[in-house]
């Protein structure tokens, strides 16, 4: 090895050249990086921008051959029209009601099951848990068919029950929370038992506070699920008394003649999107955490 030529050394002149080239490359690379990212970011953001400015345009302005990038006259009236056209007020309340009730019930069920799987001993525990996990592989559409039949038989069509009950149990959330509970040392549980603390009190005082971040993630994802659900409510509801906001939004504006009042439509879309943005701005951390663990949307 010793006879091998050691790497070429450089001379003073080359050094300066290399140093200069190095700096130039660095600047160019940084420039390209930022340019690319900014262009991509613009593309990502553009639909939102277009949604908001379109919602404030008049129909006449919207139909100008060359679209304006900012509304000439700001038409707040579009929003009022949107609320009436799509009955957004009523649908909004429906959605919030379904979201809150199903989130609360779902949390209770999830916490109790996760506790049983994490802390209690019973026959068939592991088999049952494995069975639950296995159902996660099956696409939801397969359940939808029978569930549709089932709720029809139960006479649940057109009710809030049908929107809430079938989706109360999420195997994934049970799994997530069980893993979280398992990380809490068992000694705490045993100590609580020695002190005569009841299970429920222990759950409430120790486990729930310790797994709060996960519970918040679950809450947000569950609420977003209600907000964004489209297929199931469309199948099982037919009146505005029980329909959810996304259905109302799509159905109110299904006019492909090209003559639809798009600014009003965009106003409705903005109304539906704004709560999501607010949640995103204030609770981004929990959403991103929940998402990177689950990969499930809503």
């Amino acid at each position, binding site marked *: 090895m010793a006879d091998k030529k050691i790497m070429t050394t450089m001379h003073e002149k080359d050094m300066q050249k290399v140093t200069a080239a190095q700096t130039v490359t660095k600047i160019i690379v940084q420039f390209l990086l930022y340019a690319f990212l900014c262009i991509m970011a613009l593309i990502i953001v553009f639909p939102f921008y277009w949604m908001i400015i379109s919602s404030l345009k008049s129909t006449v302005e919207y*139909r100008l051959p060359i679209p304006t990038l900012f509304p000439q006259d700001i038409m707040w009236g579009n929003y009022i029209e949107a609320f009436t056209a799509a009955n957004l007020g009523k649908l909004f309340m429906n959605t919030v009601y379904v979201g809150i009730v199903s989130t609360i019930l779902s949390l209770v069920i999830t916490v109790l099951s996760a506790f049983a799987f994490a802390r209690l001993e019973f026959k068939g525990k592991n088999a049952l848990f494995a069975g639950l996990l296995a159902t996660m592989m099956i696409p939801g559409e397969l359940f939808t*068919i029978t569930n549709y039949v089932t709720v029809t038989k139960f006479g649940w069509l057109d009710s809030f029950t049908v929107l809430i009950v079938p989706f109360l149990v999420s195997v994934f959330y049970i799994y997530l929370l069980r893993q979280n509970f398992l990380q809490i040392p068992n000694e705490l549980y045993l100590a609580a038992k020695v002190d005569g603390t009841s299970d429920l009190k222990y759950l409430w005082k120790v486990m729930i506070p310790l797994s709060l971040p996960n519970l918040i993630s679950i809450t947000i994802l569950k609420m977003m699920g209600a907000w964004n659900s489209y297929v199931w409510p469309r199948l099982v509801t037919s009146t505005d008394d029980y329909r959810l906001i996304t259905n109302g939004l799509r159905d109110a504006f299904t006019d492909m003649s090209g003559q639809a009042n798009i600014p009003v439509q965009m106003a409705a879309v903005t109304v539906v999107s704004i709560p999501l943005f607010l949640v995103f701005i204030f609770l981004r951390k929990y959403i991103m955490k929940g998402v990177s663990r689950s990969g499930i949307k809503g």
Partner: protein
Amino acid sequence: MKKFLQKIKFEEWKAWIYLAPAVALLLVFTVWPIINTLRMAFWEDYSIMKELGGTLGNEFGLKNFEKVIKYRGFIDCLKNTMLLTVLTVPISTILALVIAVCLNAIKPLQRFLQTIFFLPYVTNSIAIGMVFEAMFNIVGFGTSNPSYGIINNILGVFGADPINWINAGSGYWQNIAVLTIYIVWNALPFKILILLGGLQSVNKQYYDAAKIDSTPRLRVFTKITVPLLSPMIAYVVITGFIGGFKEYSSIVGIFGDDMQAVGGESLNTMVGYIYDALGNQEGRASAAALILFAIIFVVTMINMYVSKKKTHY
């Protein structure tokens, strides 16, 4: 000893009480559907109406599957689904990878841009689908004075003629192009989040080592970044395929729920087919759902097999 046994028994009881609500709901809404789907799928022309009327179906066997597969509408759905999956998964994965790598290479504005790129995740796919519809839509289509929409106007800046993307008489490929753009836009945030998370957990020393060895940037990307990220890439591709085969609401968002009103050729997908069959053809819907499950299962297995060979450690 007796006391101990009693205690165990008590604990078993308690566990089942805690699990009762979950188990009951799962039995009705998860376990029964699995059994029932099989039952419905194998009774020819089964429908709930018929069952309420006292008959299950004509004969027990594979007739439903045969009818579904032979039915042209289903083949179109299958074709649309496959096409969209095959187009969107690679495009969104590669784009997400490039964006994640770029994001990981900058310092100022990194968090801000990261937030921007995550934005489409927290949206209602129907609602934003309607925005995309509006952007591609030609207002006053067919009149003497149409407004070609913002996308056509932007393309016009580069000298392109306006294209009929989604209005009446629009071509199949134009429709598919719009859908692909929307689905990719929608799929990017999750992929970027996962890939960036992966990049940030890669030991920085590998990059230092590559620098010491004068590795060109492209080679760092192909020989170090991609292999080290391969588990995340595999994950993103597998979930992408699963999501792609279940594509439905993005199309409803843009084209409305008949998914057809425009060019004549249906843009319906497998999931759409299943939903459309509900109400009178539950037997065929079940057969289609089982076919979908089988496809997803096979594709996932292939993906896992390939990624096991290609990912390291």
